[in-house]
């Protein structure tokens, strides 16, 4: 197999700036609100994080917590007509993607930042040969000839571990298994050597046995290319061993974020704790997990006052329903931040409030 990273490296366009030394992606106070007949849905509400080149950020949260909206907002793929007053900055190599129009974004999409989607059956065009679907990006971004693009598509299919790529290139998605389709999607996403890959639940629709293979493949391709990855999942376990940092989302906000090991070792936010202690659900279809706590994420049209997690939180005190906790660093590690008045490891809300209300013993 040829070394394609080198071959394509020659094609790198001037948009790719190698002299920039800040974080690859710096998202600041991102807000994505949708206008709906029911009211304004606060799907992403003031999210900030940074991601360095070559690193992996895991984003975890129950279904409906805003992970998909967040990831699509980064590439400006949210339905524009529904957006209400989009706020924040998305600095990619220092350039803000937020105010860009479709035309400007097109140079970034696929070329600098790529996405892979949850369901490889619906995310591949059913009436287009997989080879042509890979060739499309190459032809648009690199202006490749048909023959060159096809050759490169076959190469890419080989790189993502598809056997006899020269044959598969002319097949349609329905002729491939679920795992193979996901590999094709990865080949499409990586065709133009992006610096950042956003993988939104890349294995949720796949069999458990295939899951690990796909995640391993992603890991390998990532380190070969020194590519940064945002790995999104509702399953903390999927993200666990693979992310450098983890952000936990709840109701459109980041509620806890920090280095993966730290987050597992010194979990602070009761919601993260609940995610950690969830168990695989045997009865329902694969990939659903039972949380240790009941209830569902709140309606994002009218989230509860105070801490958004308080209606479900086993540690909630009176204060939690009134005042929203800030996203503040942990005493032991400034890189570990969380939103909680009564974090795991200390007294629960009722305990702490009772202690406060009790008159102090006066020392004589």
């Amino acid at each position, binding site marked *: 197999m040829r070394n394609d990273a080198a071959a394509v490296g020659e094609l790198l366009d001037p948009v790719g700036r190698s002299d920039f030394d800040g974080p690859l992606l710096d998202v600041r106070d991102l807000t994505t609100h949708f206008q709906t007949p029911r009211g304004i849905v606060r799907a992403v509400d003031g999210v900030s994080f940074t991601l360095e080149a070559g690193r992996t950020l895991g984003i975890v949260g129950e279904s409906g917590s805003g992970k998909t909206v967040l990831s699509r907002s980064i590439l400006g793929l949210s339905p524009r007509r529904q957006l209400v007053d989009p706020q924040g900055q998305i600095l990619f190599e220092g350039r803000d993607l937020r105010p860009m129009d*479709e035309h400007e974004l097109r140079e970034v*999409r696929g070329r600098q930042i790529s996405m892979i989607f949850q369901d490889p059956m619906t995310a591949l*065009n059913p*009436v287009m040969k997989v080879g042509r679907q890979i060739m499309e*990006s190459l032809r*648009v971004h690199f202006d490749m000839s048909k023959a060159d693009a096809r050759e490169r598509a076959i190469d890419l299919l080989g790189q993502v571990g598809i056997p006899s790529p020269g044959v598969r290139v002319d097949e349609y998605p*329905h002729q491939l298994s679920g795992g193979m389709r996901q590999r094709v999607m990865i080949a499409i996403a990586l065709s133009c050597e992006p610096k950042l890959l956003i993988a939104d639940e890349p294995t949720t629709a796949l069999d458990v046995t295939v899951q690990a293979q796909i995640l391993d493949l992603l890991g390998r391709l990532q380190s070969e290319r020194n590519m940064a990855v945002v790995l999104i999942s509702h399953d903390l376990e999927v993200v666990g061993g693979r992310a450098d940092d983890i952000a936990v989302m709840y109701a459109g906000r980041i509620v806890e974020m920090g280095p993966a090991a730290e987050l597992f070792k010194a979990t602070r936010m009761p919601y993260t704790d609940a995610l950690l202690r969830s168990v695989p659900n045997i009865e329902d279809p694969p990939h659903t997990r039972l949380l240790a706590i009941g209830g569902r994420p709140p309606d994002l049209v009218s989230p509860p006052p105070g801490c958004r997690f308080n209606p479900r939180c086993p540690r909630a005190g009176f204060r939690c329903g009134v005042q929203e906790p800030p996203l503040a660093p942990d005493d032991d590690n400034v890189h570990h931040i969380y939103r909680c008045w009564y974090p795991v490891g200390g007294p629960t809300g009722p305990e702490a409030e009772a202690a406060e209300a009790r008159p102090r013993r006066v020392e004589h």
Partner: protein
Amino acid sequence: MGALIGKKVVQLAAVLLVVTFFSFLLIHLLPGDPAATIIPLGTDAQRTQLRKDVGLDKPLVSQYTRWLGKFVRGDFGRYYRQFGGEPVRKRLSQALPVSLQLLVYAEVLALVIAIPLGILAAYRAGTWVDRFLSTGAFASLAIPDFVLALVLIFYLGVKLKWFPVLGYVHFGQSPTEHFKSMFLPAFSLALAQAAVYMRLLRSDMIATLQEDYILMARSQGLPTWRILLRHALRPSSFSLLTVAGISVGTLIGGAIVIEAIFTLPGVGLTIFQAISERQYIAVQACVAVIGCGYVVVNFVVDLLYTALDPRVRHAA
């Protein structure tokens, strides 16, 4: 794939038998003695000749097989006139190309109008562009084709003199004049059809544009036109293609009237004249030809549909 086509060919043969049988029956649905109806003023000798030609004295089934045998060999019977009559085949062989041209032009024109507008309406769904196109579509559906034909004749033909108002020019004679002579009839037939196609493509395309694979294409930075034409059009065009095929029937019906209005010497005009002259043998042959044409067109559309959708192709 091969087995599928084989099955469809058998179906086709069965349907053709039914269609020809009912066309054949036409002459027996006439009240009274067909010979007297067709030749009201002729001599008894002529009527006897007719009965002998058609075999009216034989049982129905053997009449049919005899008629069918002649029909497939291209013997469509003849006209019965006071002083002899020409074979129907001679008239039909001149009329058929004209009608086919009219149908093809009308269909192509309808698609040429409908596809870009349908894509545009879907892409701009919910905006004033979409509402404007939808209103236009409903308006053109509300106008009967013959009324449109008369309006076009009056304004573009008589007043502006851009197009000839009647008659037919052979392509070989003058291509420009040929297309000029066919434009108004084809357009009159096509407009309502275009409205139907546009609405259909619009709604299928709107559904396609919601698909994940379109989002995927967008996330790869492909230009809008490329997404619309290369990624969204084909998966959105299955019902359009099917309806375009089925609509050939509607077009054939419309063409009879349009040919009569523009005096285009096609099958429609031939039937029209044959009915008014009570030449039911000729009517019978024309109806059978049109019926078979209709069935064969739908057969071809069905095959095309299979070729267009790889999921169907491989399921076979």
